[in-house]
């Protein structure tokens, strides 16, 4: 844990951007902290909580997280969410309830949106997990993320990675012709479902936002859906 009481702010990472003013300007304190902490997380290997005990209940698994193969030993009771956050240092998916009631932990598991708090880590051997931090492998923002920033579809940001994974999943599901409760029954089975505002609201209702950014979340998704009209599935 970097930083202890009374030390200068720069010990923790506030101060990073400023400290860099002299030697190479980093434009954004948030980006600066991100880069630095991501690097440190990689180096430190993060929470090594599982090292002291519990052989009998442990299991080892390998899965792909945001494009990288990761091998991890977990207590067999560990959820995928806790494995990502507490063992692998991947904190993009958030824990809002741990009970499948809020959507903050949503990731794309083999391309489909999934509540990682309701998934046991040991069941994910060999599977592909994409979090909001890995949606764009160039390290840039995915168009959905751009749209969220542009529409200010977030406030505290805690539900946001889950909202975004969910929204990306919604585009795929609609394109693949998955109906929702509000889908016009006359849309032929298997053909792409147009993403009306009602469709977006219905399909996004598993992701709570206590800050109440829903109007802007719908606007962001509407924009991206319009840029990428649903193609009929094969």
């Amino acid at each position, binding site marked *: *844990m*970097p*930083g*202890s*009481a*009374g030390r*200068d702010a720069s010990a*923790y*990472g*506030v*101060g990073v*951007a*400023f400290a860099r*003013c*002299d030697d190479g*300007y980093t434009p954004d304190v*948030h*980006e600066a902290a*991100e880069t630095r902490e991501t690097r440190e997380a990689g180096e*430190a290997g*993060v*929470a090594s*909580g*599982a*090292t*002291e*005990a*519990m052989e009998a209940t442990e299991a080892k698994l390998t899965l792909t997280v945001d494009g990288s193969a990761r091998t991890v030993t977990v207590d067999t*009771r*560990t959820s995928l969410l*806790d494995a990502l956050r507490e063992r692998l240092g991947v*904190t*993009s998916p*958030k*824990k*809002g309830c*741990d*009970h499948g*009631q*809020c959507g*903050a932990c949503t990731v794309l598991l083999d391309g489909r949106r999934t509540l990682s708090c309701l998934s046991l880590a040991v069941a994910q051997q060999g599977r592909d997990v994409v*979090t*909001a*931090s890995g949606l764009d492998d160039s390290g840039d923002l995915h168009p959905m993320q751009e749209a*969220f*920033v542009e529409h*200010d579809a*977030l*406030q*505290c940001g*805690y539900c*946001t*990675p889950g909202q975004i994974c969910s929204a990306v999943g919604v585009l795929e599901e609609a394109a693949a012709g998955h109906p929702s409760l509000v889908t016009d029954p006359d849309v032929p089975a298997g053909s792409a479902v147009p993403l009306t505002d009602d469709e977006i609201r219905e399909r*996004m209702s598993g992701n*709570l936002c*206590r800050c*109440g*950014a*829903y*109007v802007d979340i719908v606007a962001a998704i509407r924009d991206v859906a319009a840029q990428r009209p649903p193609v009929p599935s094969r």
Partner: protein
Amino acid sequence: MTLTGTPPAVGTAVGPAVGPAVGRGVRRLDGRVKVRGMARYAFEQLAESPAYLHLLQSTVARGRVSDVDASEAEALEGVLLVLTHLNSPKLADTSDGEYTVLQSPGVAFRGQIVGCVVATSPEVARHGAELVRIRYDEHPHDTRLREDDPDLYAPDEVNASFPTDTDEGPVEEALRSSAVVVDQRYSTPMEHNNPMEPHSCIATWDESQERPTLTVYDSTQGAHGVASTLAKVLGLAQQDVRVISPYVGGGFGSKGLPHAHNVLVALAARTLPGRPVKLALTRQQMFFLAGYRTPTLQRVRIGADADGRITGLVHEAVEQTSRIKEFAEQTTVVSRNMYAARARRTSHRLAALDVPVPSWMRAPGEAPGMYGLEHAMDELAEACGLDPVELRIRNDPPADPETGKPWSGRHLVECLRVGAERFGWSRRGPTGSRRDGDWLVGFGVASSTYPGNVMPGSVARVRYGGRGHYAVHIGAADIGTGSWTALNQVAADALGLAMNRVHLEIGDTALPMATVEGGSSGMASHGSAILEACRRFREEHGESPEPGATTESAAAEHPEAKEYATHSYGAQFVEVRVDADTGEVRVPRMVGVFSCGRIVNPRTARSQFRGGMVWGLSMALFEHSIVDHRFGHVMNHDLADYHVPTNADVVDIDVSWLDETDLHLNPLGVRGIGEIGITGTAAAVASAVHNATGIRVRDLPITPDTLVR
């Protein structure tokens, strides 16, 4: 998107804050990291070899712990510590019952912390917690709030230091001689803040130096407040406690003050020096330990003459508090100056029950109080045969009825008129007159208000780093409010710089002191400190400072503020559709118009207003913590059963504001925007439901069962 306006009422000349950045809808600076999930919230901060804490909570609502058997838990591999009152370190200060954790076997409410298990992994900690056997001597408890509770008492004052009662003019006489009198009871239920990010901390106690130090990553609206509380309770020097909180996943008041878990995690860290201890409350635990909105039982009496002019107004509230700490919400304070009543009486009475400690929840006081008052106004309009918009316009006071002071800028009437126009209020039909298929359609309206608050004590630091870049430091918080962005805008303009030359840092007690991000006071308090520090920096160091040049300053004195009554106002219009068979209520359209002084960032401000209105909608239709009085706990203590709006519940929210700058309160001309959006909304929904159905639902929330006849 420039929105700098001409002040409708002029005070001092427009200050240096007006510039290219303030008033512009700049994209959220922390947006990029947040949409990728790379902003590290408290529990996500790096910690080497952390230990995990799981709480033990009392299973009785009142009594004493009679026996603790921790042997099985202690024998579990990976368990590092089982802490209860039997082995807890002693606290230095026990004057606040909420923070007096594990100091005695006493239990004052169901779910109170009676211990914890700390282990090497979260799974083992939770398993260990299940193995600790605690027995209790159970005493009879009382958790039910009643208007006729013989033990009701008047607190010395209510929240935010308002007088408990006021009595102005011969109100009973006024009511007796009024042509029209409304006399009704309204109630609002217990509600829980439920920010999406659970209350979380990582605490490390370090004994390697001469004096012990404590470092806490915390999810808080006020790092400095947490540090000073922990220092006092634990007997540490203030400078030996550091609290860090760069990103906060919502607070809504529940993270405005530290709670018992902050003390617990510090006690555990102290017992395991050198080892970071992590604690995140579970969603269920948050319903016991993170504060909540007290239920209120209100009675409102309003008398008016035949033209609808109010002659007398009485607003009384009964609320609950805990036995270990008093919190008295200022429910009826809004009625002291909202309308031009010649005679007014307001009061608050409390019942101390065997319940968790209530605390701040978005617009404490104003939110429930404006529900009661504004619903009564709707009933008064009906009784007088007046349009509810017109009734409010007729009762707009020219000066503050309570103090006689001039308004710093009261534009309620304008908000009502602009809102009526935007909404299409003229199309409202008589009660029960509109039907569209299975849906009964109704329109409703209510006023909003929130005081303009500035908290003294914040300090900002400006330092020149060279090459044209400046650091601006203040220990403020961004809980979704947009402070990261808006404070940067203020600093950029005050220094005469482009925004990317300013490097703002907040959320850390190693930065200069900032007051809590609460009471909608953040911009007025922290922004004003930044403004003054920047001004003085230029005064002391000029336009071409030496690298390292530094200035620290509090906000400038603004004595003028005392001469005015400073409040924000708004008007909310709502369309509801009520299913004639099931009683389901849908809200397809909401319009809010606000007058809050200068708007620093229209893009993030719109989100604040919208968010507030979503909260108001939520209060109207959904939120209700239901207590099982046999056992004293909230039964629906999770997000499946405690309902908040989902995406499908929110359709169209139109937000706008008057172009305005109020320089009477502070040199930035702002009055705060975080809370006003929730005030009045529930009354507007109730008004619309009545217009649609003819049914008055006076006890929130308005659920389908209240409408099926």
